[in-house]
C-alpha cells in the first residue's frame, strides 16, 4: 500500500509539470497582453515595452518558463501579479483560497449531511411514497444549476424576505490558522445562500447514488446470510450493508470534489465572493498570466490529491481491493 501511494505521488510530478507547461504556453498564446489597457485607456508603447521587459515578457517563452519553474521549485514563488501591482500570486492565493475552501467545505458538509441519510431512507423504504418523493426531489435537485439556484435564492430570501444579504462573504483575511473564519453571526448570515446554492445539487447526487448503491448491496448473498443468522434488521443494515454501499459514494467524492471546485467558480461569480474561482475568471480576462497559471496549478494539485485519497479510502472500505 505504501509503495502504491509513493508511486502515485511520483506520478503527480509529470502530470503537474504538463499542466503548468500547457497553461503557461497557452495563456501566452491568447491574443492580447496584460498591459493592453490601464483602465479604459491604452498605454503608450514605450511604457508597455518597459513593463514587458520588467516581467521578462520580451524573452522567448522557454526562457520565461525556465525562470518560472526555478522560482516555483526553489523559492515556492508563483510570481508577481501583473494586474494588482505590488501583490504576488502567493498573496492572492493566501487571501482567496481560504474563502473558496470555507465555501466548498461547508457545501460538501451540507451535501453529505442531507444526501446520505436521504439516500438511505429512500432505499430502505423502496417503492413507497417516501421513496418516490425523495427520489423526485433529488432528481429535481440535480437538474437545477447553480446559475438558476443562486438567483432564485437571492430573489426569495434576500430581496423579498430580506433574511440574508444579497452578496459578499462574511469573513476577511487574515484567517485563524490561515484558513478558519471567525464564526460570527455575520459570517453565517453571508454563508447561508451560497452554501445552499452549491450544496443542493451535490446533496441530490449523493442521495441518488447512496440509494442506488444501498439497493444493490441489500440484494447480496452475504446480507441474506446475515438475515438468516437471525441478526436484527438494524444490525444487518448498519453493520453489513452500509459500509459496502458507501464504496460507490466514496468513488464519486473525487468527481464531487472537482464539482465543488467548479461549483465555487459559479457560486463565487453569482454572489460576488472574492474566492479563487472569481480570481481565475477575472485573471484570464486580464491576461494576468502568473495568476492564471498559479490558480490552475493549485486546482490541479487539489484534484490529483483528491483522486488519490479516494483510491486509498476505497481500499480501506473494501478489503478485496488491493493495490500493489
Amino acid at each position, binding site marked *: 500500500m505504501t509503495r502504491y501511494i509513493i508511486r502515485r505521488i511520483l506520478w503527480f510530478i509529470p502530470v503537474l509539470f504538463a499542466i503548468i507547461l500547457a497553461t503557461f504556453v497557452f495563456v501566452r498564446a*491568447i491574443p492580447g497582453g496584460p498591459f493592453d489597457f490601464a483602465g479604459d485607456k491604452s498605454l503608450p508603447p514605450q511604457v508597455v515595452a518597459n513593463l514587458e521587459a520588467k516581467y521578462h515578457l520580451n524573452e522567448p517563452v522557454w526562457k520565461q518558463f525556465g525562470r518560472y519553474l526555478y522560482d516555483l521549485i526553489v523559492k515556492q514563488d508563483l510570481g508577481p501579479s501583473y494586474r494588482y501591482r505590488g501583490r504576488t500570486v502567493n498573496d492572492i492565493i493566501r487571501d482567496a483560497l481560504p474563502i473558496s475552501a470555507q465555501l466548498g467545505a461547508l457545501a460538501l458538509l451540507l451535501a453529505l449531511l442531507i444526501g446520505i441519510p436521504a439516500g438511505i431512507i429512500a432505499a430502505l423504504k423502496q417503492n413507497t411514497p417516501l421513496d418516490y418523493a425523495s427520489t423526485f426531489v433529488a432528481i429535481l435537485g440535480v437538474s437545477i444549476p447553480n446559475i438558476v439556484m443562486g438567483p432564485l435564492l437571492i430573489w426569495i430570501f434576500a*430581496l423579498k424576505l430580506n433574511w440574508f444579504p444579497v452578496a459578499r462573504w462574511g469573513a476577511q483575511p487574515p484567517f485563524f490558522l490561515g484558513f478558519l473564519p471567525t464564526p460570527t453571526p455575520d459570517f453565517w448570515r453571508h454563508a447561508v445562500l451560497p452554501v445552499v446554492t452549491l450544496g443542493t445539487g451535490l446533496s441530490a447526487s449523493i442521495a441518488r447514488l447512496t440509494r442506488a448503491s444501498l439497493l444493490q448491496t441489500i440484494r447480496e448473498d452475504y446480507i441474506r446470510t446475515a438475515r438468516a443468522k437471525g441478526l436484527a434488521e438494524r444490525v444487518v443494515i448498519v453493520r453489513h450493508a452500509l459500509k459496502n454501499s458507501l464504496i460507490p459514494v466514496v468513488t464519486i467524492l473525487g468527481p464531487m470534489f472537482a464539482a465543488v471546485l467548479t461549483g465555487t467558480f459559479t457560486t463565487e461569480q453569482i454572489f460576488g465572493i472574492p474566492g479563487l474561482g472569481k480570481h481565475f475568471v477575472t485573471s484570464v480576462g486580464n491576461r494576468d498570466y502568473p495568476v492564471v497559471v498559479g490558480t490552475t496549478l493549485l486546482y*490541479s494539485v487539489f484534484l490529483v490529491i483528491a483522486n488519490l485519497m479516494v483510491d486509498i479510502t476505497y481500499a480501506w472500505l473494501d478489503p478485496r481491493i488491493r493495490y500493489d
Partner: protein
Amino acid sequence: MAAAEKAAIREKAKEAFEASRRERTPFRDAMRQLLKNRAAVIGGVFVILVILMAIFADFIAPYHFAEVHFEDNYAVPSSKYLAGADYLGRDLLSRTIYGARVSLAVAFVASSVSLVIGLVIGMVSGYAGGRIDNFLMRLVDFLYGFPFLIFVILLQVYFKALSRRGSGIAFVGPLLDLNRRMGGMLFIFIAMGFLNWLQMARIARGQVLSYKQKEFVEAARMVGAGDARIIFRHLLPNVLGPCIVSETLAIPGYIFTEAFLSFIGLGVDAPTPSWGIMISEGYTGLRSYPHLIMAPAIALVLTVLAFNFLGDGLRDAFDPRLRGE
C-alpha cells in the same frame, strides 16, 4: 411430401426463429423495460418536443430572436409578450424558444465528439492490449488529473480573442468564418467535446475486455472474420449500449457547462440567444425586473430534468442489476 410443402415449412420455421430472435434480444428487452418506466417516457417525449421546438423555432416563436422593440423594454408578461421583454424589448419567449437550439446543439455535438473519441481510444486499447493498451491507459490516467473546466475557459477566451482580432494562420480563417455564422457555437463544440471522453474510453475499454474472450468472438474468429469485422460487427454493438447510456447521463453536464460559460460571458455571440446568457442578463436585473429570468430558467431546468429522467431510465433498462423488483 412435395418440395413446395417442405419449402413452406422451412420458411415457417425460419420465420418463427426470426420472430423469437426479434422478441428477445438484449436491446429489445431494454427498450421494453424503458417503455414501462413512466418517468423515462415522459422525459423522452419532452426531449423530443424540445428538439422539435428548436428545429421549428422559426414557425413557433412569435417574434424573431433579435427583433428589437425599444418602446417595450423590460415589459412585464402580457398578451403581447407572454414571458415579457428584455432590456432591448426583445420578446423573451421567442428568445427562450430559439435558445433551445444552442443548448441542444451543444449537448448533442459535445456528446457525439466525446463518444467517438472515447470509443476509438477505448476499443483500440482494449482490443490491442499489451503495449498499446498500456500506453493509452497511461495517457488517460495522465489526463485525468487535468482540470478540464479551466482549459475549456482558456480555450473559449482564446477563440473569442481570435475571432475578434482575426488570425494570421491560413486554415483558421474559414473556421472563424464558420464560427461567426454559427453564432459562436463552433468553438464551444470543440472545447466541450474534450470534456468527457476519458470516462468514455474507460467504459469502452472495460466492455471490450469483457467481451473479447466470449465464445461468439472466438466463433467469429474461427470462421475467418478479420479484426475490423470483429470490432465493428461483434464488439461495437455490445460496447455501444453502456457508452450511449453514460453519454445521456452526461448531457445535463454539457448543458450546464454551456450555460455557465454563457453566464460568465464566454458563450455564444450576441445576439444569438442562449439560456445561459438570458439567465445572466436576468440576474443582472434581478432587483427591478425579476421576470426576466423566469422563462430561460424554467426552460433550462425542465430540459435538464427531462434528460435526467431519460438517462436514468436508460441506465436502469440497460443495467438489469439496478432494476427494482
